[in-house]
């Protein structure tokens, strides 16, 4: 693998980490809003968290697919 390949992989993991950080922030807001009895706002933030988790998942999937093309599998 070249340095450029490694950098591309690292960037995908950075992006996934950022998406998961955002998801965590939305989860914390959702928890607070549900405790306050504000269901619509809690739901909006809960779904927002889900959106970021799926975005993170997509980045990890890309990396997994790239790995699969390069790995020597029996």
């Amino acid at each position, binding site marked *: 693998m070249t340095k450029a390949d490694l950098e591309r992989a690292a960037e995908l993991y950075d992006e996934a980490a950022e998406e998961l950080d*955002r998801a965590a922030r*939305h989860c914390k807001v959702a928890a607070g809003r549900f405790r306050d009895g504000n*269901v*619509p*706002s809690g*739901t*909006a*933030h809960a*779904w*927002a*968290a*889900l*959106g*970021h988790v*799926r*975005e993170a998942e*997509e980045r990890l999937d890309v990396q997994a697919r790239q790995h699969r093309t390069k790995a020597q599998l029996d």
Partner: protein
Amino acid sequence: MSDGAYALDLGLVPYREAWDVQRALAGAVSQGAIPETVIFLEHPPVVTLGRRTDRAELHVPEDAEVDVVETDRGGKSTFHGPGQLVCYPILDLRRHGKDVKKYVRDLEEALIRTVAPFALEAVRFEGLTGVWLHPPPRKIASIGVHISRWITTHGYALNVDLDPAPFTDWITACGLEDAAFTTIARELERPVTVDEVRPHARDAIAEVFELDLEPLPAEDGAGLWKQPIHVQLASR
């Protein structure tokens, strides 16, 4: 056949929080993790700048207590404040025709239907996005949208009952010199609440986009996880 979708009434939400939520929901709708969702809310006073905003449109007084936010939506500058009904549909245009111009025309149609029950006959003007009363021309609702991977964010802002002075005193709203802005309350010459208008807005969006809109929380108190759309999602 109508598609199932959620309607979220979020009340008063700061602009940046609402934008952040919209972008994340767009990701979830794009991946089919949640149904299409239509958000209704009001913003504390804020001036937002679209991608085509000319800085000369801005003349916010230094002592004005208002946030200024650069956004990724189309269009020029606008003002949001309490007493304005803001609607952000998070829709998948792959289900609604993959046609951005049609989407904007449909939002205009929804606005025209929303104000009709108040005996207001709103119109479109060729070449101008938004909805107007006429004559003389006075703008009652603005539209600015963003579409990525066919998922929509941003939407429309309908002036229900607020002072329209910031549209002209603080900015040259929508880049329109000498344009007049109005509100439902001003036209009816009586106070009108956002709560009074929202059900009409919800019905109009449901009709125009053929959505079976399910409000959250459910009026029968069924709870988040017992609602039909979640049952459908859980069975996938």
